[in-house]
């Protein structure tokens, strides 16, 4: 066997080897979990639709990875990776999609619409833009209490057209609260290209309206996103207020699994396929010899066995009890009455 000198690059962005492996783990976990969901979806085991972050796992994982314990982020439909980094359990995501009684929302809400404020993520509602004012309020509470905590909110290129986005980010900037806004510029809002969404081509120009610092990064370059997010988070933590980080990325699939993407130019689809953030990251870490194929495949195996176990367990779980639907509309009274034409049957 021919001996060779291994050239090791210096570790990037203050990351340790273990952290680089951890990032890889979350990237693979995110993608593999979604691939499971696709299978389950095709088997009709997912209730309702399935939305993927294919091609955007990199920016989700890397931006969330820049946060610390005590920080809080609010994901969108394509930020599965972000909440996994914050500690959300894959089995809970499966439970959400399969509407199990064991799900974090006890079957009331779907996909990533769930929260754990202790771990540091707040599930969104469907109405785009609304989470920006809410996250501004969370960041305001950090500021009012003098806590060195940071909020992070995601918004799509399309979502920036909503009035709620505008009011929330404008308020956050005027109040100088520690809120980092990640704008996911993937070029599409469902079937609508950015060119029909807005007259601007770059999302950072939107930050100018709010006097917010802004940076644009290659959203499929995991380490670049991490570095940009990290400095934005640091600035916010030190009382410097928010930053808009535009991650330029692409949607690796349709808007949702049912979407045939007829409206999308073929080259657009191909370019995105060739620009896979996980492949790029893998290639980079191997080339730099921060790790080796053996370690990576071990991590992939770990992910798959974890998911096998989670899926098996989740599938066997029961749906929520029908009349559990009546609790917690209010704190007081904690339970609403069943309507008379029901009770009379029970």
């Amino acid at each position, binding site marked *: 066997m021919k001996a060779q000198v291994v050239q090791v690059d210096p570790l990037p962005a203050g990351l340790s080897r273990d952290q680089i492996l951890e990032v890889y783990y979350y990237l693979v976990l995110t993608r593999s979990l979604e691939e499971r969901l696709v299978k389950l979806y095709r088997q009709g085991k997912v*209730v309702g639709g399935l939305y993927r972050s294919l091609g955007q796992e990199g920016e989700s994982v890397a931006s969330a990875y820049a946060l610390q314990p005590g920080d809080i982020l609010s994901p969108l439909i394509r930020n599965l990776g972000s909440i996994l980094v914050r500690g959300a359990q894959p089995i809970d995501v499966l439970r959400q999609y399969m509407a199990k009684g064991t799900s974090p929302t006890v079957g009331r809400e779907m996909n990533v619409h769930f929260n754990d404020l202790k771990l540091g993520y707040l599930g969104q509602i*469907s109405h785009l833009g609304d989470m920006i004012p809410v996250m501004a309020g969370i960041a305001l509470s950090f500021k009012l209490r003098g806590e060195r905590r940071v909020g992070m909110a995601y918004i799509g290129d399309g979502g920036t057209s909503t009035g709620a986005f505008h009011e929330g980010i404008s308020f956050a900037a005027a109040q100088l609260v520690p809120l980092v806004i990640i704008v996911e510029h993937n070029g599409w809002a469902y079937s609508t290209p950015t060119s029909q969404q807005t007259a601007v081509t770059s999302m950072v120009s939107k930050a100018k309206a709010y006097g917010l610092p802004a940076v644009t990064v290659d959203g499929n370059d995991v380490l670049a996103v991490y570095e940009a997010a990290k400095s934005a988070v640091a600035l916010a933590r030190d009382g410097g207020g928010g930053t808009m980080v535009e991650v330029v990325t692409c949607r690796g699939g349709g808007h949702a699994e049912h979407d045939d993407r007829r409206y999308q130019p073929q080259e657009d689809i191909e370019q995105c396929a060739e620009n896979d953030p996980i492949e790029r990251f893998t290639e980079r870490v191997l080339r730099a010899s921060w790790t080796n194929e053996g370690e990576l495949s071990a991590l992939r195996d770990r992910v798959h066995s974890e998911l096998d176990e989670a899926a098996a367990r989740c599938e066997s779980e029961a749906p929520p009890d029908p009349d559990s639907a009546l609790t917690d509309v209010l704190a007081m009274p904690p339970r609403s009455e069943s309507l008379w034409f029901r009770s009379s049957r029970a």
Partner: protein
Amino acid sequence: MPEVTYLEALRRGMWEELERDDRVFILGEDIGVYGGAFKVTEGFRDHFGAARIIDTPISEVAIIGAAAGAAHMGLRPVAEMQFMDFISCAYDILTNYVATARYRAGLSTPMVVRGPSGGYVRGGPFHSQIPEAAFFHTPGLKLVCPATARDAKGLIKAAIRDEDPVIYFEHKFLYRRVKEDLPDDEEIITPIGKAMVRREGQDLTIVTWSAMVWKSLAAAERIAQEDGASVEVLDLRTLLPMDEEAILSSLRKTNKVLIVHEDTRTGGIAGEIAARINERAFEWLDGPVLRVTAHDTPLPYAPTLEDFVLPQEEDIVVAARRLLSY
């Protein structure tokens, strides 16, 4: 005659109006190249062009505000909400600007806001709403809610021709489940403000609309079979202005009224109907005006929960039987 679905009937109604009147145009999210989230405007852009089938940003306030401005200038905009759940974002401009424009300032604002509403589709809390009550309380608006393919076509055509702003609630559960023979050569217009008796009966009147018409008809059939009682089913079709006469004349025949709606109970439209019956026909009542509605919760996602919260055929049967027993 070809069988036409509720969705296809709606589609043809808009198509015919676009052909007939070049003041008509449609704006909304993903309605152009994509043909809309439910393909209601499939093929429209190719045929009528991007200037009349306008893909908009994700800006419900702008969509509805711009429709109002264009309507003032004599155009006939049809604004699509991708899901009616998102009309709430435009609640201010719809209730304060659009609804009051004629009264305040003598402005004419002929426009339609339409989109998919309603549950029974496992859509969760934000893709299942039928946000009728808040607008029902707004003077200056008209509200229509077709239950059949014929009315889906007839009401969209009437709404587009109406001089007032109309909110058109289409029910996504009915899109492909309800079919009807609709002659191509007949011009179908359903007059706004007129209810329709879907089933004649003597012993009890069910006042309902949209998807609940079908559950009420099924319940009425079961009661006929199992109890031998005859239940009249009145489909309001228009919520605002409400066809009070149709309700009262059916009541004068049956002396009992059950109101069935899909929306949540407290503050729902059934309350208004109960109040009007009290005021106008108290002495005709042989029993209380009863309601079958959804429970007062956001609409949960899991099938077991959604089925529990929403009204079901069995609920209507139970409530009707109680009322029949008076």
